[in-house]
């Protein structure tokens, strides 16, 4: 169903519903997608499909809610879901559920954001197969010692959100990603790498065929994986660290962004008695963190899943905690402004406050000319840091390359990240170590940030798993970030 058809359906449902003293939010979503998976030079799978349906959240007059969803887009289904959600809300009220009438305070909004991408099917599937096979062959030739699996996924995700107050917002988010995953076996040991290139549509395949940027990155990462597979473990301890912008996105997202989401304030290490600790010094004055949607980005979303504009939030300014990511339901209670932070995996999920594109920005930045190769960049990085006197030859300074994901406990402030490999910048020969867990306390990690190196890049992508949902996330920083040694931030240990 198209974006305008979703809006007509949501309108029809809300017009037929007797709102009374209660409140209704209707979310209609229609997502179509196509994906290709290739392995060892052959197509493994070509799949088409999608998902569409309705999610309805109904509030009683007291502000107690129930939720119902179904994977059919029809008026009859919508009306039935409203009844079911109301019945659950009423039962919930008898249970003594906590009231929340904040949605009544939201301002009505009517807005529409058109799909910024090219037509979903502009590149026919047969052509997609040809292009993907060529790109897959390219990476196999670029590093034949690895076993390669490639995949391409293109999604067009249309939403309309309507509310009892007359709000109707609709938008379409296009996403496309090309990935190469390589596995390297060396002396009976193995290691793997995963690289990706994202955009809004199948044009990324053409771009990749022109510049081979991902192919080169894949080959370089595979070379690193080969070296890592037989490399020694690093002794656990506290070291000066350099992280690439993928890891910096992970740090900002996992270690900090989650801790300022309004629904976490009751237990967040950045909350006090349920309120955001506004004014808390969390980093050097040169460090800033912001979150907000960027058009064309993997995690772009112009409106919240509750029908409010998604705003860009300056979370940390000049090292001071200034604001949080607030959705309409818990922002006031958490002592922060509503920024339209509610996002949901799909129509069938209840929205939660979460990030979109989170950026870690450091004013103090060293210039850095990219060399065109991974290890060339690493060597230049070493030179830049040595010249600035940030590191000393012979003293371990560890560069963490390739973000593999992370996790944080917002209550305790504990975070962990994993990378694909570690390089010692203090060593003239740039000794490589096997990855080990990068962990610590989130505030200590932020306070350790001293310097950015190179141009900013905000296209590190991932999937946020908060609340058991899977929602696109993204972000970045300067090409590299230098962290001073901290006794509350450590690298893993020997096996």
């Amino acid at each position, binding site marked *: 169903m198209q974006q305008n058809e979703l809006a007509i359906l949501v309108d029809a449902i809300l017009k037929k519903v007797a709102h009374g003293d209660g409140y209704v939010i209707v979310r209609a979503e229609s997502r179509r997608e196509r994906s290709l998976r290739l392995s060892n030079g052959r197509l493994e799978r070509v799949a088409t499909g999608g998902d569409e349906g309705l999610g309805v959240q109904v509030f009683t007059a007291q502000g107690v809610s129930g939720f119902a969803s179904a994977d059919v887009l029809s008026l009859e289904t919508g009306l039935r879901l409203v009844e079911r959600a109301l019945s659950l809300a009423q039962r919930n009220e008898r249970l003594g559920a906590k009231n929340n009438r904040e949605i009544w305070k939201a301002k009505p909004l009517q807005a529409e954001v058109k799909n910024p991408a090219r037509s979903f099917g502009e590149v026919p599937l047969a052509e997609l197969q040809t292009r993907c096979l060529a790109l897959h062959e390219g990476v196999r030739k670029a590093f034949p010692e690895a076993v390669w699996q490639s995949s391409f996924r293109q999604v067009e995700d249309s939403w309309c959100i309507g509310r009892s107050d007359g709000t109707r917002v609709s938008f379409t988010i296009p996403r496309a990603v090309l990935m190469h995953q390589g596995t390297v076996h060396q002396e009976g040991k193995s290691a793997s790498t995963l690289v990706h290139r994202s955009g809004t549509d199948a044009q990324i395949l053409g771009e990749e065929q022109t510049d081979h940027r991902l192919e080169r990155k894949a080959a370089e990462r595979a070379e690193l994986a080969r070296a890592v597979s037989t490399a020694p473990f690093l002794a*656990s301890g506290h070291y000066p660290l350099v992280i690439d912008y993928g890891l910096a996105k992970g740090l900002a997202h996992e270690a900090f962004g989650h801790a300022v989401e309004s629904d976490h304030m009751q237990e967040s290490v950045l909350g006090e008695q349920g309120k955001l600790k506004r004014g808390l010094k969390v980093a050097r004055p040169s460090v800033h963190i912001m979150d907000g949607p960027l058009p064309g980005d993997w995690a772009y979303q112009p409106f919240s899943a509750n029908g409010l504009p998604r705003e860009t939030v300056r979370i940390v300014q000049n090292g001071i905690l200034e604001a949080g990511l607030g959705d309409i339901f818990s922002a006031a209670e958490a002592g922060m402004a509503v920024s339209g932070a509610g996002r949901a995996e799909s129509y069938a999920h209840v929205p939660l406050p979460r990030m979109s594109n989170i950026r870690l920005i450091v004013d103090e930045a060293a210039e850095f000319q990219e060399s065109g190769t991974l290890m060339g960049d690493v060597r230049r990085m070493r030179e830049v840091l040595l010249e600035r006197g940030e590191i000393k030859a012979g003293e371990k300074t560890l560069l963490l390359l390739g973000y593999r994901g992370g996790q944080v406990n917002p209550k305790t402030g504990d975070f962990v990240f994993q990378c694909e490999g570690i390089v010692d910048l203090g060593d003239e020969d740039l000794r490589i170590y096997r990855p080990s867990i990068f962990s610590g306390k989130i505030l200590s990690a932020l306070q350790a940030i001293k310097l950015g190196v190179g141009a900013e890049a905000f296209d590190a992508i991932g999937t946020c798993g908060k609340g058991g949902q899977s929602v696109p996330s993204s972000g970045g920083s300067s090409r590299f970030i230098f962290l001073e040694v901290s006794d509350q931030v450590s690298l893993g240990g020997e096996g």
Partner: protein
Amino acid sequence: MRLVAQLEELLYHFQVRPDDETLRLKGWRIFIHEMKSVALGIKDNSPGSVYTPPTYREGERGEVFLVWADGRLSQAKVQAKPPEVKDPWIEELRGWRQAAYEDPEGGRIVKPAPLPLAAVEDERLEKILAGEDEVLFAQLERFLNEKPDKAKLQAQISAAWGYRHVRTSTGLAVTYQESQYGLSFSFDRLVGGGFAKRRLIEPEEWEDVWQNTLLHYEALQEFGPAPGSKTAVILAPAVAEEMLGQYILPNFSGQNVLERRSAFAKERFEQKEGVFAPEVSLEVDPLRPFEWGSYLVSPEGVPAERTVLVGKGALASPLLTVKDAGRWGASPTALPQGTSGLYLSHTREEDWERALQGVDDGVLVLSVLGLHTQDSVSGDYSLSAPQSLRILNGKFAGRVDVKVNGNFFKDLAHPAVRMAKTQRNVMPYLWVQSGMQSF
């Protein structure tokens, strides 16, 4: 039932007398999951908050797999369409044809075979979905009434009931009912418990999971003495299960083995190479009554049967889909649903209560951060475990914050590998050889 009937009629028609010869089918397979579910939640001691309201969900969706007359293949996700849509599938079929691809090894449709008996449906859950859901609300209230005074409780209870339909061009037509029930809860987001089966929880099971979690929660309130170099590291069943998910599933995937993306090469399976200690076995058993991972027939139409992956420490079989089985030269195997249906065992499994009493110096790892970030193929792990319990002289002795490092394959291969179980857990407590640092 409407969706599977529509698709069956459509695909049979285009197999036997297509209106358009370019759309002629040689074979096909349909898998549809028809489901209703209800879920209740508690967030920060508040039942049914705006983030965890009572939730009802219904859906009818699945996948079609098509073999066209020219041997090309198509796969597509499908879901129910509104009744007012006329001829909903003809245009879809044309789209599926456009998406056809060549895969000479992928076009096999299995023939019907006798189905096993396995209990996967609890009528009590059908009644809950029909509206008799007071039992779930009562369980939610019980959580609130019995939680420790100072604890912040998070909880979720869910029940689901529905049908699975599998149809093939070779004559398989199976529809069966299934149900699911799950509960999970945590105190202060630090320690939690859970239960997931295809039936409602029994009172003694509730008591068991609740008391065990309380015991851990109380023990975590004080800090314990730091572990030493000889301290035993024991993974709680939930952590052991996560390890299986991270290291066993990807490395036993038949496709990964065949394409050299696994830690284990095909030849090692053929030679039945010993990779774990001889006391250790690993199997997929989809026939155990009311277990979450049990089923009657796979979405590919393969009847459920027990499959040994590692027998007495030796590689026995990878996990084989229909396509991978053809490439391997074997029959398709049972497939776990996530880690559900996967069972790790030791020939000398101990009773956990008794084994605990014998631990003079140990650490019980209740949860780990970052396991999903580890490299599956190498088996290496380097994990933070800030909520771990010190064990001294057979008793819990406070909380310790540790990091554990090691290799999961080496842990299972080590001569000193030990496992202990309770009556409730299908997954064991697992002694591993991790290096450990405390903070």
